[in-house]
């Protein structure tokens, strides 16, 4: 295997569920040694969520939710609720470059995973705390919650609905993955700063603030015009048509976005230039945008008789931006994603053949990322407690007996 970018970096990862694990997954697949610290006292919800449990047969190593977010890592079980467990965690922190945690504030304090304390254990540590709305500030800093609640707080769901309708929710456990990308970039900058200066630091990452930073149209409009931009459905600032349109079949849709006269002419040509397309109210980009509700109604009557994937291909062949709304079956069958390398088949000891999504980038000099199998619960206990911390087999057995390594 060629050299991976983060070889030599060790991560003590106390996080669970989605956002922290998604950060650690970037680092692990890029070559860092990620030690994921779990416990049977608080099992990662990714291991037990029924919606991901392979063939509905319960077992901590059978969950697709966990597998999708934790390949490339090592997993140990350590009971942080007891003092000896916390002392062993400190020993791992002393040998690490980076700590990741996403506990709610009260739990972080109880378990001793706060920056003040971690920094006392390892002064040059880089530590990432991922939370709903940040770990400093007022009362919301101590709220319990997860991704979608951050979107609620900062106005994303208010802006997600149909025009004039109630707030709706964005899919895809937003914004856990958004913050994972953002944190990963800044963590690497922090590690580089540390390598040069010896100075560690704390990254206090608020999911709410990441979302704010990804909605500049709304926040800058407020800053400039004191206006709440609100929900706009699929309406764009310039393009029209710009919407999803019904296709043949049950709940099948196509997205079409037209931003130029050339693309509009190509779309009209594909439709066979029906008379309505020549009406003055659709004559230019601005008129189409201004009359987009009426335009959408015309277009929907046309798209309805076509299969969504075939129609997207047909429109793309004449240079119109269009794409099928893919459901989970269709996205797994998509030829582009397979050829590009987005999916991979695994053959897992307990659950057999499954499909997992890879990381969403390719690097010419790092052709093979670390896609080692998602770890079983406690799979690397012996390697980490014995190899890294130097405990003897007898000590490890005794700690297991005492439910410290547990």
């Amino acid at each position, binding site marked *: 295997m060629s050299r991976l970018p983060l070889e030599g970096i060790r991560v003590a990862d106390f996080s669970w569920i989605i956002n922290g694990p998604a950060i650690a997954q970037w680092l692990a697949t890029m070559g860092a040694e990620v030690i994921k610290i779990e416990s049977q006292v608080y099992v990662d919800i990714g291991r037990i969520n029924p919606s991901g449990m392979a063939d509905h047969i319960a077992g901590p190593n059978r969950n697709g939710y966990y597998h999708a977010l934790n390949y490339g890592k090592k997993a140990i079980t350590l009971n942080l609720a007891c003092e000896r467990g916390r002392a062993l965690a400190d020993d791992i922190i002393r040998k690490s470059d980076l700590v990741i945690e996403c506990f709610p504030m009260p739990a972080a304090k109880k378990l001793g995973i706060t920056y003040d304390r971690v920094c006392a254990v390892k002064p040059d540590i880089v530590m990432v705390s991922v939370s709903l709305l940040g770990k400093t500030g007022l009362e919301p800093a101590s709220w319990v919650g997860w991704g979608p609640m951050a979107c609620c707080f900062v106005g994303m769901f208010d802006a997600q609905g149909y025009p004039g309708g109630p707030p709706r929710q964005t899919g895809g456990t937003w914004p856990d993955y958004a913050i994972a990308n953002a944190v990963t970039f800044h963590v690497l900058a922090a590690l580089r700063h540390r390598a040069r200066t010896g100075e560690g630091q704390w990254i206090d990452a608020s999911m709410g603030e990441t979302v704010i930073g990804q909605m500049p149209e709304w926040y800058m409009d407020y800053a400039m015009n004191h206006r709440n*931009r609100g929900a706009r459905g699929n309406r764009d600032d310039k393009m029209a048509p710009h919407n999803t349109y019904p296709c043949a079949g049950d709940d099948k849709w196509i997205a079409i976005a037209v931003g130029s006269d050339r*693309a509009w002419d190509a779309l009209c040509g594909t439709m066979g230039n029906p008379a309505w397309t020549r009406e003055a109210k659709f004559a230019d980009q601005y008129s189409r945008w201004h009359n987009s509700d009426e335009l959408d109604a015309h277009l929907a009557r046309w798209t309805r008789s076509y299969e969504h994937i075939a129609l997207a291909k047909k429109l793309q062949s004449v240079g119109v931006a269009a794409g099928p709304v893919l459901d989970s079956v269709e996205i797994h069958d998509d030829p582009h994603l397979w050829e590009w390398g*987005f999916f991979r088949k695994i053959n897992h000891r307990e659950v057999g053949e499954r499909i997992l999504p890879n990381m969403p980038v390719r690097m010419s000099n790092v052709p093979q990322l670390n896609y080692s199998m998602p770890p079983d619960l406690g799979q690397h206990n012996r390697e980490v407690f014995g190899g890294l911390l130097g405990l003897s087999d007898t000590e490890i057995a005794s700690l297991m007996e005492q439910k410290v390594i547990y």
Partner: protein
Amino acid sequence: MASKALEDLIVIEFAEMVSGPMCGKMFADMGAEVIKIEPPGAGDEMRAHPPFPGDIPHPEKSGAFLYLNTSKKSITLDPATPSGAEVFRKLVAHADVLIENHSPGYLDSIGLGFNALKAINPRLILTSITPFGQTGPYRDWKGTDLVEFAMSLTGYNTPTMVDDPERENPLRAPGHQAEMMGATAAAASSMFAVFHREATGVGQWIDAPCWQAIATTSKIEMAAYTYVRLPFSRLRGNVAVGLEPMACKDGYVYTLWAAEPHWVALKKLLHNPPAMESEVFDKLAGRQANDDVLRPMIRDELKKYELDYLVTEGQRLGLTIGPVFTVAQAAEHPHLRARNAFVAIDHPIAGRLEYPRSLVQMTATPPTSTRAPMLGEHNAEILGRLGYSLEEQEGMRAAGLI
């Protein structure tokens, strides 16, 4: 004075609109010198996009442009012309990272593809952000944020919890979230390449597509397909434990009633309405099976209370509950104010405005924004540095090259 983590890096940004500029902004705010190449004339297309103060378009006043291009330098240059290409090569010779978001094959078509640039600067990291990637059947498809988002499975599932699939067509997320995810994945990968280069001495080419980046946000929903062998459904029946904005007396709240402690806390918060005490609802399975009865009941109860009470008291009782604010409410919220989530930046033409401060907060090397550049503001500085005399610069300007 906080230090800048990336102040030794030079980044060239040959990109417009959202994805490339957002990636460049992340480097610029961390201290890298980011030189943005804009088309002579109108500049980055984003300069023509709203919001504008008073809705009056002006190339130096686009709120989206001003935000996406903080801390950068701007030069105007057309690398598709021979003399523009010469300047471009000189810039790239001393750069660490080149960010671009043109169609696959465009750089090659003007003689500035990865192999040509690698010959000039073997340490160069070329970060190409595109809709679908550099290879594969959709390589040459036209992508927009709507199209990328719609195809991502997250697009299928937005909005969530659909009651009437005929009327509720799939929506994209507010703004340009597919492009944003492509930008942040590209920025992270570019930094991985910087680490790789420090160990190996060579640069590389990064293929960072927005569709794949936004599809990643449905990783666990995808897993359900091959692990549980169930297609993921966007219909409401799939959830049935809350998890959506619900109206209260003076706004909306977001909560759930999945786990036992949540259910107990929710009932207590609503003063234990007798109808909710039915043993039918005691277990999760019962609550899910009777969602059609239970959900309207909870909705009616929530409408009797004010948001402040529901959130403050709910959180105190251990319920996962939060407010659903508008952007206007959030922008003025004391918690975000206390965290300095916004920063005032002066601009000679757009004036003083409050911008979102940064994607994350850092203690030693915080991301820090200075104002976006005006179109071509740094032409003289950069061209001078590359060794072009004032006469040569004047000639280029007269020829419309800069």
